[in-house]
């Protein structure tokens, strides 16, 4: 229950992420109004500094950086959403399964999660991308493999604290089955924590995807990806045309920060309960 005194504080936590979201929306709408093409090359217009015609300048192929940044953010968010879906589905499912079923299954799931956690998640993603290729679904599952065990473990740990609470015992005594207990009683009790975790997985996924692309191991060109734009910009035109590097990075930071703060706000709501 949110107490009256705590409410303004938790609402205040949504102000900054909402503003960052509006910034992204504004930049995207502006691009939609301008209607430029993210992959169309115009070699006579290459490396132009920001101007009214090209708000974020043009890159080495004469492509419009603004439009590419917007498509890149879209791509980043799509990867983040897929990763959240994969990691959230698998991690939360196995974590709650471990907490509800108990016994050998619980032991096995937690041990396997621990094993996966011993490899830094970025390394895990790197290996899988090399092996599986750079299809967006492959990248998302590579990232998800790093996050799912963490989520499974924390879901399990959070459920340990509530699975023996009286309201759960009461439900069991009333003859409610384990699946219903999980869906109706346990998951709603942990909703805030889980959503916060999913949001922070999203922000980490955006940063990792960008890092993979920056290393040249992400989605191949000409798909506009922010990490790849940073790679091309910083390798070739870093000093002469810094806008090619600055704008994609700034959008990356804005999107990542928005998700981190969303996670923070969700967590805050949970602490008040």
């Amino acid at each position, binding site marked *: 229950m949110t107490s009256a005194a705590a409410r303004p504080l938790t609402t205040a936590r949504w102000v900054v992420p909402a503003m960052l979201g509006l910034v992204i929306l504004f930049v995207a709408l502006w691009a939609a109004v301008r209607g430029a093409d993210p992959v169309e090359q115009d070699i006579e217009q290459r490396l132009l500094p920001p101007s009214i015609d090209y708000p974020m300048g043009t890159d080495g192929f004469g492509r419009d950086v603004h439009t590419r940044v917007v498509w890149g953010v879209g791509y980043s968010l799509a990867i983040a959403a897929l990763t959240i879906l994969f990691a959230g589905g698998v991690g939360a499912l196995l974590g709650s399964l471990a907490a509800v079923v108990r016994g050998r299954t619980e032991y096995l799931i937690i041990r396997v999660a*621990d*094993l*996966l956690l*011993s*490899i*830094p*998640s*970025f*390394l*895990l993603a*790197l*290996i*899988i991308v*090399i*092996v*599986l290729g750079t299809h967006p679904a492959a990248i998302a599952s590579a990232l998800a493999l790093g996050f799912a065990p963490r989520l499974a473990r924390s879901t399990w740990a959070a459920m340990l604290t509530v699975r023996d609470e009286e309201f759960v015992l009461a439900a069991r005594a009333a003859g409610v089955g384990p699946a219903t207990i999980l869906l109706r009683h346990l998951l709603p009790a942990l909703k805030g924590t889980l959503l916060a975790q999913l949001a*922070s997985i999203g*922000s*980490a996924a955006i*940063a990792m995807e*960008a*890092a993979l692309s*920056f*290393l*040249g*191991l992400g989605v191949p060109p000409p798909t506009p990806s922010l990490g790849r734009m*940073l790679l091309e910009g*910083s390798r070739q035109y*870093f*000093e002469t045309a*810094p806008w090619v*590097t*600055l704008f994609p*990075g700034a959008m*990356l*930071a804005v999107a*990542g*920060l928005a*998700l*981190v*703060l969303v996670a*923070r706000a969700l967590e805050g709501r949970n602490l008040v309960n």
Partner: protein
Amino acid sequence: MGRAFGHRLGAAAIQLFFASLLVFALIRVLPGDLALSILADTPHTIETREALREELGLNDPQVVQYARWLWETLTGLRGVARSTGEPIRALVARQLGVTLLLALYAVTISLAFAIPLGIAAAHPKRRVLGAAVEGVTALGLAVPGFWVALLLILGLLRLFAWSPPIIYFGPLEFFSDHFALMIWPAILLAWQHAAHLLPVVRAETSRALANPFTVAARARGLSERRVLYRHAGRLALWPAISVSGVQFGGAIAGSLVLETIFGIPGIGRGLVNAALARDLPLVQTLVFVIVAIVLGVMLAADLLGLMLDPRTRYTT
């Protein structure tokens, strides 16, 4: 105490064994045909592929391949890197030290700032410091380190016409150049590391402040400062060390990108180059080496915890 020591050591060894299985499975079994996977981007004939299969011993059963790789790796990293022709042992010896130094600098900077700041920010009256700590944490988690690194290099270049040295020197060979190259990536890694450390130190200190012993300490007339740093903050030390150990892997992973940007010849850049050259056997060995180091550091943090905090000796 001795038993707890042995327990953790055994657990770490088992974890390393399973990690080696996992790395092997991901690289050798998952792609279906390793030779095809290595040659994916290059035009080749069936004969070259067969020759490569023979060279890598891919015609043997998987179990034999795994056992051979593990044996060769554990008995001194034998074998030669396909992509560079350098013996793997020499390669790792050259690169690992550099990365470990970088990680050591980063973790030291992180601990030196995060522990006092986290403890200070736990005090309920320090609102401004608390907000500042939250800001630093959120930015450290959200903003990709490599973009900040690029901004930094651009800024130093534009404002001071200064760029980091191109050639790496060891700390004993040529310290000023070593320092000038390593300090920036170390600070960036420390920031990311501290972003995980600060909230833990702060939360643990807050929790400790709620204990009756702080009331008792104040009642005895101790200053607020002493209660905060000497009594409450002390309880945050062990969790801080534990988190540092767990986040060490994150620091190594972060150095993959930063080493590439700053041109530091560490194992992170070595791994990226091996990946780009599709030298999968080398990737496999390097990842295993990194995992072994990460597990070793986590174990060391654990053992340090055993010595610092007697309570942890009785949990499994």
